[in-house]
C-alpha cells in the first residue's frame, strides 16, 4: 500500500481483501469469481426490478394524495362558505398533512430514480470488467509462462472481485433504502385506511383520535394562514353557498 495511514479509507479495503483472500487457491478464486460474477449480475437485475416496483408504488400513492389535496381544499372552501369554520380548519389540517406526505413521497420517488440509474451503471461497469477479464485471461495465457500467467490472472481476478464486492454493497444499500421507503409508504397507507384523507362528509363529529394526531402533526400556523387567506378570498368573492355542508355533522 502506498504509505497512506488513513484509517477511514483503509477499513473497508481491509475487509474486502479479507473476503477475497478466503479462496486460497488462485484457480479456485477464478472459478469462484466467475460463478459469483454471473450470480451477481442476475442479482443486480433483480435489485433494479425491485427498485422500479417500489418507485411505481410510491408514484401511485403520490397521485392519490394529490387528488386528496384538491378535494380537501374544495371542502375547506365549501365549509367556510357555509360558515362552518371548525370543519374548514379540519379540512385544511388534513390537506396540510397530505401535502407534507406528498412532498416526502416526491422526494423518495426522485431518490429511487437516482438509485435505479446508479445500479444500471454499476451493472454495466461490472459487465465491462468481466468481459475485460475474459479477454485478458486469454491474452496472458498465450503470451506468458504458466507461472507468470497464473499471477497475472489472479491479480485481474482480484480486481474483478473488488468490483463485485462494490456492486454488491451498492445494491445492498439501494435495497435498504427501498425497505425504509416501503415502511414509510405503509404508514401513509395506514393513514389512508384510517380515513385521514377521506371525504370530510364521511366524518363523525367531535375530536377523534385522528384529529388529535392531526393537531400534533400539522403546523397550526400554516393552517391559520391558509384559513385567513381563504376567508379573504371568500369575503371578496362569491356569497356563501350554504347547505352543502351542514353545521356539526353528527
Amino acid at each position, binding site marked *: 500500500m502506498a504509505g497512506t495511514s*488513513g*484509517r*477511514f479509507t483503509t477499513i473497508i479495503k481491509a*475487509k474486502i481483501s479479507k473476503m477475497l483472500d478466503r479462496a486460497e487457491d488462485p484457480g479456485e478464486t477464478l472459478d469462484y469469481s466467475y460463478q459469483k460474477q454471473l450470480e451477481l449480475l442476475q442479482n443486480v437485475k433483480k435489485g433494479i426490478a425491485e427498485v422500479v416496483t417500489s418507485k411505481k408504488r410510491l408514484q401511485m400513492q403520490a397521485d392519490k394524495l394529490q387528488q386528496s389535496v384538491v378535494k380537501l381544499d374544495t371542502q375547506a372552501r365549501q365549509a367556510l362558505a357555509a360558515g362552518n369554520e371548525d370543519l374548514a380548519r379540519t379540512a385544511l389540517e388534513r390537506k396540510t398533512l397530505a401535502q407534507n406526505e406528498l412532498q416526502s413521497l416526491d422526494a423518495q420517488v426522485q431518490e429511487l430514480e437516482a438509485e435505479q440509474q446508479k445500479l444500471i451503471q454499476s451493472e454495466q461497469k461490472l459487465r465491462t470488467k468481466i468481459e475485460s477479464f475474459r479477454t485478458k485471461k486469454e491474452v496472458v495465457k498465450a503470451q506468458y509462462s504458466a507461472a507468470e500467467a497464473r499471477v497475472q490472472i489472479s491479480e485481474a481476478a482480484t480486481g474483478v472481485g473488488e468490483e463485485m464486492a462494490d456492486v454488491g*454493497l451498492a445494491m445492498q444499500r439501494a435495497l435498504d433504502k427501498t425497505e425504509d421507503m416501503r415502511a414509510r409508504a405503509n404508514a401513509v397507507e395506514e393513514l389512508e385506511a384510517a380515513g385521514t384523507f377521506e371525504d370530510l362528509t364521511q366524518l363523525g363529529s367531535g375530536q377523534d383520535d385522528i384529529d388529535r394526531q392531526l393537531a400534533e402533526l400539522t403546523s397550526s400556523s400554516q393552517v391559520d394562514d391558509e384559513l385567513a387567506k381563504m376567508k379573504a378570498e371568500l369575503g371578496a368573492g362569491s356569497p356563501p353557498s350554504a347547505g352543502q355542508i351542514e353545521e356539526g355533522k353528527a
Partner: protein
Amino acid sequence: MIVRIATEGQYELPEEFHAELNEIDNRVVAAVEADDEPAYKASFSALLEYIRTNGTPLEDTDLRESDLIVPPPDLTLAEAEHEFTGDGLLPD
C-alpha cells in the same frame, strides 16, 4: 495510487495528493470519534471532493485493484461510528 469511492468508482490519484488526502482522512476520523455531525459531513464531503477533483477516473476495462477504498458517499455518521467499532458495512 488507485482510490475507490465505494459504490461510485475508482480514481487514479497521483503521489503529490497523498499527504493531503491523509490529512483529510484524519479529520474525518476525529469527527467520527467526537460524534460531531457537522464536522463529519464537512470533512467527509471534502474527502470525496478531493478525490473526484484531483483523481482521474479509471477506465471500466481496467482490472487493477484499489490501494484505498473510501466508504460510500451516503454513509451516515451512525454507520461511520459502527464502522470503527462493530462489523461495519461488510461483515468480518
